C-alpha cells in the first residue's frame, strides 16, 4: 500500500521533472549559463546622431530600405526621421510621414487620418529633425522576451533576428520602447535595424551613414580608443533616448531636446 507521503513525493518529483527546462538538459556548463554578458569582443559598435546637422532629406531612409530589402512602399522601416516643430505658445508638433523616406518637402505637419496642420513661420520657436534607428541596447528588452532564441545579441553588441527561427509572435515588437521593430512584409518575421551588419563586417559604413550628405549619422567602435566617434562620445555632452527604461542604448545623440519622444 502506498502512503500519502510517498505519493506526494512522487508527484513532486514528477512536477520537478517537467519543470526542468528542456533546454538545460542540453549539455551545457552552468558557467556558460550564468556567464552574463561579458565583453569578450574588442568591438562594440556605437552610433552617433547629430540632430543639428540633420536636414531631414530622408536619403538615409531611402538607402536603408533599398540596401536591406525592405519593400519600398510598405509603411515600415528600419530607420526613420522625425520632425519636431515647437511653437512659441509651447505646442509640440511632430510627424514622420512614410518614416521620412521621401524627406520633408512641405511645411505642413501630418496629423494622421489625412489631416495636416499649417504652422506659420513666425510662430516657430524651435524646429529640428531627429533620425531614429535601433539602439542596439546593452540590455535589449526585445531579446529578453523572445520565447525561442530567434533574436540575440552578438559579441560586438548588434541585435540580430534569425529569420529561420522566428515564430512571429510580436512579443519583441511589444517589448521595444523605441518602436524599432516590425514584421517584414515578405518574410513574415520580426525585422529591425542591425547597423547594416553585412557592411560593417566588410569595413564599410552602414548605408544610412554613407548616404547622409551632412554627416549627421556616424558609426564607431567604443572599444577602440583611437576611434574618432568614440572620442566624441567620451568627451562631449551626449544623450540617449528614453534612459528611464534601463535599456542602456548604444545610439548617442547630440542636440536632443526634451520634447523628443
Amino acid at each position, binding site marked *: 500500500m502506498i502512503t500519502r507521503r510517498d505519493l506526494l513525493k512522487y508527484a513532486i518529483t514528477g512536477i520537478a521533472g517537467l519543470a526542468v527546462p528542456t533546454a538545460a538538459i542540453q549539455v551545457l556548463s552552468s558557467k556558460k549559463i550564468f556567464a552574463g554578458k561579458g565583453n569578450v569582443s574588442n568591438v562594440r559598435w556605437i552610433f552617433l546622431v547629430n540632430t543639428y546637422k540633420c536636414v531631414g532629406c530622408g536619403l538615409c531612409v531611402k538607402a536603408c530600405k533599398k540596401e536591406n530589402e525592405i519593400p519600398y512602399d510598405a509603411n*515600415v522601416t528600419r530607420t526613420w526621421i522625425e520632425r519636431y516643430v515647437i511653437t512659441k505658445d509651447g505646442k*509640440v508638433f*511632430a510627424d514622420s510621414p512614410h518614416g521620412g523616406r521621401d524627406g520633408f518637402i512641405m511645411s505642413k505637419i501630418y496629423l*494622421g487620418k489625412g489631416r495636416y496642420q499649417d504652422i506659420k513661420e513666425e510662430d516657430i520657436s524651435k524646429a529640428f529633425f531627429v533620425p531614429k534607428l535601433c539602439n542596439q541596447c546593452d540590455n535589449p528588452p526585445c531579446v529578453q522576451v523572445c520565447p525561442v532564441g530567434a533574436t540575440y545579441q552578438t559579441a560586438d553588441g548588434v541585435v540580430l533576428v534569425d529569420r529561420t*527561427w522566428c515564430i*512571429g*509572435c510580436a512579443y519583441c*515588437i511589444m517589448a521595444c*520602447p523605441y518602436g524599432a521593430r516590425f514584421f517584414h512584409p515578405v518574410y513574415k518575421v520580426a525585422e529591425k535595424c542591425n547597423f547594416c551588419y553585412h557592411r560593417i563586417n566588410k569595413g564599410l559604413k552602414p548605408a544610412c551613414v554613407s548616404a547622409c550628405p551632412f554627416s549627421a549619422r556616424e558609426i564607431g567602435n567604443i572599444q577602440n580608443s583611437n576611434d574618432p566617434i568614440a572620442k566624441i562620445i567620451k568627451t562631449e555632452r551626449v544623450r540617449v533616448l528614453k534612459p528611464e527604461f534601463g535599456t542602456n542604448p548604444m545610439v548617442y545623440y547630440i542636440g536632443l531636446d526634451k520634447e523628443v519622444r
Partner: protein
Amino acid sequence: MTEIAHGELWTAKELWTVKELFTYPNEYIYWSIQIVMYPFMTGLVAGAFVLSSLYHVFGVKQLKDMARFALVFSFALLFIAPLPIVLHLLQPFRGFYVFMTPHFTSAIAAFGVVFFAYGAIVASELWFIYRKHFVETALSLKEKHNKTPSEWVKYLIFRVLTLGAYDISEKALKTDEKAIKILAGIGIPVACFLHGYAGFIFGSVKANALWMTPLMPVIFIMSAVVSGIALCILTYIVAIEIRRFFASRKALPPGSFQSKEDTSGVDIHTIKTTSNYLLFFLILAVSLELLDLIFRGYTAVKAWDILRVVLYEKKLISLFVLQYGIGSLVPFVLLLMPRLTIKRAIVISVLVLLGVFMMRWNIVIGGQAFSLTFAGFMHYQLPIIPHNWDTFREGFFGALSIMIAPFILFWIFNKIFPVFDYKESH
C-alpha cells in the same frame, strides 16, 4: 538586384490600425483579437479547475456534481487555450519551437512548460476519476462477441485509456481517491501560476505604460476564476436543460432508468453555492482593478497624461460601461439580491463573461491604443468579413471559432468521460 519590387503587400496590421497624431512609423496594433482570446480562454481553464478543486480539496459537498463537470470542461478548454496564440503567430508551423529551444527569460517560453505541467495534472486527475469507468467499459467490450467496427474502435480507445491497469478493487479505488485529492491540491497553485503567467506576459512589458504593473498577474488570476465559475454555471445549466428537453421528448417506458438530472433539472443549491464563490472572486477582481486605476491616477507618472485620455475618453464605453458597468456592477447587484433563480444565474453568468472578456480587450487593445511616443493614438478596427487568411485568423470569425471549439470538444469528451450519468462508487 538593384531595385526592390514596389507595392509589396504589407500584412493586415496596417488595415486594422488607424493612427492619429504622432506615432512611430512601425507602430501598429500587433496584438489583436486572438491575443484578447488567449488570456480569456486560459482564464476559463484556470477558473474551471479552481472550481472543481473546491470540491476535491476543500470538500465543498454541494459542488460534487459541478466539480466533475468543471474538470472535464476545463480539460476541453485546455486543448483550445493555446490555439489563439497559434492563430496569432505569423509562422504558426514554428510554434513548437517554444518546446525545442525555450528561452526561459521570456514569459511566453516559461508559459509553455507551465501549460504542459498543468495539462498533465488535469489529465492525470481525470484518469483517476474515470479509471473505474474505463476498466468496466473495456472489460465489457472485451467479453462481447461479434464486435462491430465502431465497438472495436471504442474497445481499443478504452483499452489504451486504462493504461494497462485493471485493478478496481475497493483498495485500489481508495488509493485513486487520495491521488485525486493530491492532484487537485497541486493543481490549484499550478492553475494560478498558469494564469498568473498570462498576466506576467503583459505586466512585465516595461515599454507599455498601461500593462506594466506587478498587480497584473493577480488581477488576471482573480478575473480568471470569475470567468471560469461563470462559464461553468452557464454551461452546466444549459447542458442539463438540453438533456432534460430531449429526455422529456423521448417516450420512455415507465420504470426505466432516468438519471437524477434527467428528471429533476438543475439543482438550485449547487447553483447558489457556486454563485457565492462567484460573488467573492468578483469582489476581489474588481477591487484590484480599481486599485490599479486609482493608483495610476494618484501617482500620475509621465504616462498618465496619455493614459487618462485613453481610459476616460477613447475607451470610455468599453471600460466604464461594458467592463465595469454591465460586466461587473450589474451582476454584482444581481448576485446580492435574494432568492437566486436559474434564469437570473444565467443572466449573471453571461454578463460576467462579457465583463471579463472586455477586461481582456481593454488591456490588450487598450494597451496599444496609445503610441510609445505618448503623443499619438491608434484605433483598432476588428475585421468582420474575412477577405484573406490574415483577416480570418485575426478577425471576428477566427475568434468565434475559438469560442465555439471548447463546446464541441466538451461534447466529444463527454462520450469518454460521461459527466452527467456517471455514478461514482466513492
